[in-house]
């Protein structure tokens, strides 16, 4: 009996210490969305349960290891106890109840974070290797940074141009994959203004680590100002438009502008020069070559660079866009 009292006290003390310790060190990033608040409440239940179960098993185990160790000079075996059906049924049934309760909480939280607000802001997200692109159909604008008004739900309809990506802003907690050929929906209600990073969470190829984008949560007035600024900026100069597209699609992740070698060939001094291909032949880098290489990159592989890395852009960009990018590359002499 004495053993049980000591163990019970130790379990309570240990549970308290583990729980306080875990909550004190700050396990999660800041809560910047309504969904994060719901999710963190569930995390808290988990942490409490983990603290208790960890303490329960560990205290009994280490107590036994110390108290029931074989002391010097002792021979003999332990007590002859083979089992206890009552205990076994107890530690099957109680966990069962806890598990069902947890599952209920899980389903409830899922319902809360999927709650639909009819006034939600609609944003269509398209991802590709390795860029994020956002369209605001209500305003007819597109952007590579995600601007969101604070305290208003946003409904993100997301798809991918090539492989699977995943949209994750840790401060918002929720995450959803972007799968080619289907549209997945994610709802977020940001609650704190500031700048965040969206980080691609599904391995998407060589530059996966760098597939990050800016997310700005701003006051409604600031958001409106940004929208009208976007609507009024229509770029006419093809070089400038090309530069914008290059940023938008993250081309410079692989192609440097300063002559250094990255995953793909550099663009500096590319236009008007002979390029050696992997079959030994050479080709003149004129506008036609550049446009062809953007539309179907695997047609000509430059010597020393791998094939099948750059995606085909023929379904992604229209003729003017490709020409603008070629014009921009031409300007990089």
């Amino acid at each position, binding site marked *: 009996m004495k053993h049980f009292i000591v163990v019970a006290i130790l379990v309570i003390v240990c549970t308290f210490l583990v729980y306080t310790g875990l909550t004190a060190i700050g396990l*999660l990033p800041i809560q910047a969305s309504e969904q994060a608040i*719901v*999710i963190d409440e569930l*995390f808290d239940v*988990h942490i409490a*349960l*983990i603290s208790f179960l*960890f303490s329960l*098993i*560990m205290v009994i*185990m280490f107590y036994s290891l110390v108290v*029931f*160790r*074989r002391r010097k000079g002792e021979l*003999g*075996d*332990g*007590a*002859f*106890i*083979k*089992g*206890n059906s009552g*205990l*076994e049924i107890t*530690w*099957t049934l109680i*966990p069962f109840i806890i598990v069902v309760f*947890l*599952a209920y909480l*899980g*389903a409830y*939280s*899922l319902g*809360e974070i*999927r709650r639909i607000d009819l006034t939600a802001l609609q944003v269509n997200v398209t991802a590709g290797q390795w860029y994020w692109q956002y369209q605001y159909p209500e305003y007819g604008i597109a952007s590579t940074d995600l601007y969101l008004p604070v305290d208003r739900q946003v409904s993100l309809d997301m798809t991918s141009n090539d*492989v*699977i990506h*995943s949209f*994750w802003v*840790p401060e918002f907690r*929720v*995450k*959803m*994959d972007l*799968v*080619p*050929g*289907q549209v*997945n929906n994610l709802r977020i209600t940001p609650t704190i203004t500031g700048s965040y990073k969206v980080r691609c*969470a*599904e*391995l998407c*190829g*060589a530059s*996966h*680590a*760098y597939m990050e984008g800016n997310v700005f949560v701003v006051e409604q007035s600031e958001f409106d100002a940004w929208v009208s600024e976007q609507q009024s900026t229509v770029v006419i100069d093809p070089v400038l438009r090309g530069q914008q597209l290059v940023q938008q699609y993250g081309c410079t992740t692989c192609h440097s502008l300063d002559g250094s070698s990255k*995953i793909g060939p550099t663009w500096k001094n590319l236009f008007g020069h002979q390029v050696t291909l992997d079959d030994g032949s050479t080709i003149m880098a004129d506008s036609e070559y550049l446009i062809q290489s953007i539309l179907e990159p695997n047609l000509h592989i430059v010597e020393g660079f*791998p094939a099948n890395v750059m995606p085909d852009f023929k379904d992604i960009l229209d003729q003017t866009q490709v020409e603008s990018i070629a014009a921009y590359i031409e300007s990089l002499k």
Partner: protein
Amino acid sequence: MKKFFSLGLVRGILWQIFGTALGIGFIVLVRILMGLPAWKAEPAVVFGALLGAIFFLIGVGAFTDWYKMAMGEEVPEEVDESSLGWRRYFGVSLDHKVIGIQYMVLGIILMSIGGIFALIFRTELAESGMQFLTMIEYNTLMSLHGMVMIVSILVGIAAIMNYTVPLLIGARDMAFPRLNAFSFWIAVPAGLILLSSMFLGGFDTGWTGYPPLSVRAPLGMQMFFLGVSLAGFTSILGSVNIIATVIRLRARNMTAFRMPIFIWAAIATSIISLTATQLIGLSFELVMFQRLFGMGFFDPVAGGNPILFQHLFWFYSHPAVYVFVLPGLGIISELLPVFARKSLFGYKWVAMSSLGIALVGFLVWGHHMFTSGMAEYLRVPFMYSTLLVAIPTGVKFFSWVATLWKGKIIYPVPMLFTLASIVVFLLGGLTGPPNATIATDLHLQDTYYIVGHFHDTLFGGFMFPFFAAVYFWFPKMTGRRLNENLGKLHFWLVTPSFFILSLLMMRVGLLGMRRRIADYDPALGFDNYHLMMTICGFLIAAGVLVFIINLIRSAKSGEPAPGNIWNSRSPEWQVPSPMPVHNYDKEFEVVGEPYDYGLPGSTYVRFEGEEHHDQP
């Protein structure tokens, strides 16, 4: 020199090289005859590798007896290979103990290779920014670390099951010795093909190989798919053998609930491997065909569906986790009573919990796909089924600590590793439910938290029990025991560093570190954490190195241990070590319960012609 070429392994590799060349030549010839350009790397290399694997098996001699049988020639029922000495470990042997040791050595070699991969990319991660690897090199190493380790675990559990199952149930050998040898030898060319992916452009998809990314990956991807598909035969055929052996070849009176508890774990594991492994092979082969023949199984443009792959893949790969851990949990249950000097608490419950985990494990695969955009109504039932796994797992933990309660516990090295297994697996188990309740998983999915969680389950459920099992049964294999001091050094190098490593993995994951990234944003402030993780990784490697040195030294000159050094009730310890060629010279009969420590005068087994066998 002639002796060197008579080794099965050497012949096998030479034949594999020849077969690969032949396969490549064949494809080139066919393409010329069809009027196509002669060289296309992908079909040539894939066919060459497949033919190379078959030729390896012919060269090593895995088909020889079957060929003779088909030709109507006599093959001996049992072969005495002891005259071959150490050479029998390098060729086809039908002795389950030799095959068990072959598996063990292959497992440790693969584990070391996978571990070295981890050390390389862990060093890259010690600091933010790219230091010495390129992105594609990082991804290849990270992906291969995953799959090489998985194969090494499958080989490792095959090692323990092959060596111990016939001994524990009193069989002379496995039910199908030739199939047993075949299952081992196919793992060797499979491993070579898997590793060859590194030299064929690598691949960048992680061990999951999700399309469409895996459809666009370099040629190395195909070697990965082919290697894993072939390695799958090891699991499938090996489990057929285990199940048949246990059902048919048990000693007299060894009823279901008087089997050693590890046998229950081996059966549960084998049921999963036998029925689920096909699905990972299938899903990988579908992507192979999509790449080779343009069949658009997972290509949305051609009417395919990328999510379908994930369902097929996880239908195996989740139960596979239980394939990895159930034998380890069985080892914990098997060794704990020996060192606690007390009966296993609730034998039937522990046995049934293994089957329970195996069966529920088939219904939970969807929890890997909570963020994939699969049908919304599927997420909740998968959450319920996933959480149910906690119940049989809990039964095991409670039974273990109840086994320790009021024991007379002793602490030799195998017990230290057994106890560490319990703590580590408890951490792995307790960090699981947050991944099951969907809302919290939306934060955790694809982060380092998951990496920490599954390293805990695999170290607690496989790595530590594997070490415990090797320390425990090594005297049975060699007649010598492993050095205790080196064993303790191994334990203390590995255990604390592993705790720090996995807890830090979870910490950075919760704070926003994604998994499978070659570089991380310095603004997140993770540099110091990663440096510590890297140091811990190297300490673990140092511990494993001590272990390998201990194995080699003790096999040659360890302290002789011919008798029942652990004072166990199990039948294999009632006869001298090392074990005779066909196991027990005299058959035994089960006359008691396996774990009745503390019951005076009782024994588990009685050998033929023996009236009384006193248990000290």
